């Protein structure tokens, strides 16, 4: 039973890395420009569908499709910012939420129209493979998806710390007016931040399609996970988003082993409430 628990924890960590990376996109935009993007989950499944389409039409492996998906997602992010994000910057959060929910609705139905309501999954040759190291057993595609997720996190970290744009982003996040005065092109920074956020979502979409079943309705599921992760970890905190994601993954995994699985979700939200009460800025929030 002990080994079962350990493996469950590992599985939870793998899933959690994915939730974390989705939450990361969300929190990046919130931290830098105070924008609540309820549609983050949909920016994950659109590339996922696209990757699926490339796979079933031409046999292109999802990881290979990343070459195409990354620039496309980034571009999509730029577009969304230009036409939607920019107008909402000065509006209250409620407006962001309603507009991005409208976007969710739009994308969900568009996908329904184009792809139908069935669940899809890129059944690659390695979809059901497992990695076995002694007592450890983990899913091969999940392992690689997490690996890619962590590589992203690392690259993002480097970007924010060592590049000019990255540093400008952090400055703008801390103080918009101040940054502007100092000469930072705040609008351009926001543009890039948004693009990066959607880029991350796109990467997540491509790497989960080998093992995760996606339908047009899955977007909302991802949103719920992203929230919980972001709240627990702290809105605006990048390490927080990942930690939050990992925690959720593990909690749900353990809940499955020891309790009735349907409590997993309630437990996650309950923790979210506790965090909001006692540490409203999250475990790592500013």
């Amino acid at each position, binding site marked *: 039973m002990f080994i079962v628990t350990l493996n469950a924890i590992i599985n939870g960590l793998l899933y959690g890395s994915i939730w974390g990376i989705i939450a990361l996109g969300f929190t990046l935009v919130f931290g830098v420009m105070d924008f609540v993007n309820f549609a983050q989950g949909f920016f994950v499944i659109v590339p996922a569908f696209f990757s699926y389409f490339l796979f079933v039409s031409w046999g292109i492996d999802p990881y290979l499709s990343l070459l195409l998906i990354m620039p496309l997602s980034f571009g999509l992010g730029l577009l969304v910012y230009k036409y939607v994000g920019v107008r909402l910057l000065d509006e209250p*959060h*409620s407006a962001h939420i309603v*507009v991005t929910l*409208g976007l969710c*609705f739009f994308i969900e139905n568009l996908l329904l*129209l184009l792809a139908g309501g069935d669940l899809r999954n890129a059944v690659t040759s390695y979809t059901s493979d497992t990695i076995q190291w002694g007592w450890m057993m983990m899913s091969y595609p999940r392992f690689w998806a997490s690996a890619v997720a962590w590589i992203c996190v690392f690259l993002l970290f480097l970007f924010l710390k060592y590049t000019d744009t990255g540093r400008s982003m952090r400055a703008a996040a801390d103080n918009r007016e101040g940054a502007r005065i100092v000469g930072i092109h705040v609008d351009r920074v926001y543009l890039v931040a948004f693009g990066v956020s959607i880029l991350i979502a796109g990467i997540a979409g491509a790497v989960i399609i080998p093992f995760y079943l996606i339908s047009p309705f899955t977007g909302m599921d991802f949103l719920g996970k992203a929230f919980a992760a972001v709240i627990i970890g702290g*809105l605006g905190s990048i390490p927080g988003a990942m930690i939050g994601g990992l925690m959720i993954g593990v909690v749900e995994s353990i809940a499955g082993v020891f309790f009735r699985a349907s*409590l997993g979700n309630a437990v996650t939200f309950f923790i979210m*409430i506790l965090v909001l009460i*006692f540490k409203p800025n999250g475990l790592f929030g500013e």
Partner: protein
Amino acid sequence: MSRTRKHYYYLGGAVILLFLPLVMNDHLLTVAITGFMWAYLCLCWNLVFGFAGQFSLGHALFWGIGAYTSTVLFVNYGLTPWVGIFVGGLFSAIAAWLISLVVLRYRVKGVYFALMTLAFAEVFMGLALNWDYIRGPVGILLPMKNSPGNLFFMARAPYYYFILGLLGLGLGATYGIQKSKLGYYLKAIREDEEAAEVSGVPTSRYKILAMVISAFLTALGGTFYAQFFLYISPEIMFGFSSQMTMMIGTMVGGAGTLLGPVLGSLVFSFLGELLRSLPLAHSRELVTVERMIWALVLVGVIFYLPGGLVTLGNRVKSQRGKPGTS
């Protein structure tokens, strides 16, 4: 324009509404009943969002508590829903009060408040799904029979008048709050909460009051849903779908106004029904496209008509009276 003229319009409208069941068939009555029910629920949500400026994402919680309370009391103890409906309202009000205490004590605001209310609704749904006493995920089926003493009718017209009554109650409550001291203070809070506090307005007390009243009224709507549709489940009652409907109607129609939520909600309901009854609508592709258009309309209204549909009457787009959250 004189006030008497305005009153004549209202009176005329009310008379038409009262006599509609005589000319409408069952299907249209059902459409009207459903439409008015959502309009009523939008009004309830408006009290918290439009008036108190609090973005509650978990209002389904109160709706569900109302429905489940009256239903369980009836099914397990035979208590007539005419009484059960108020018990549901009471429980809901208590829940709202407790949540408000937590929220205010720990100063949860803005998007955090929104997510917290959502979290409460989700937790409740999780608990409800695992609570066998209320039948868990299977839900509860209410009997279909004519029993006016228990708020069950075979005909549709009695339900129509009931929801009309609720709608009147909702409008009355909104109007009453608008013109009262509570409304005055809520407006101050919504415009600038810190300034209000500094001027000595007991912001906490009034925010709680708005939340409690809203929760009570929303719960009444929940019981009505149960009595009319005769089937409730945790998924239906605590799920996000009802929240979406409450939000969209209010925000598109005009939050913070008296008739805005009603207008927004009715437009969505009736135009949706209109599209559904076109012969072409039998094709599911068209339904999906219709929904896409709705989504765009929603976004369009937020961008270009920030006061909501009620401001269509204005030539001058005055201040953006949209309630903010800090």
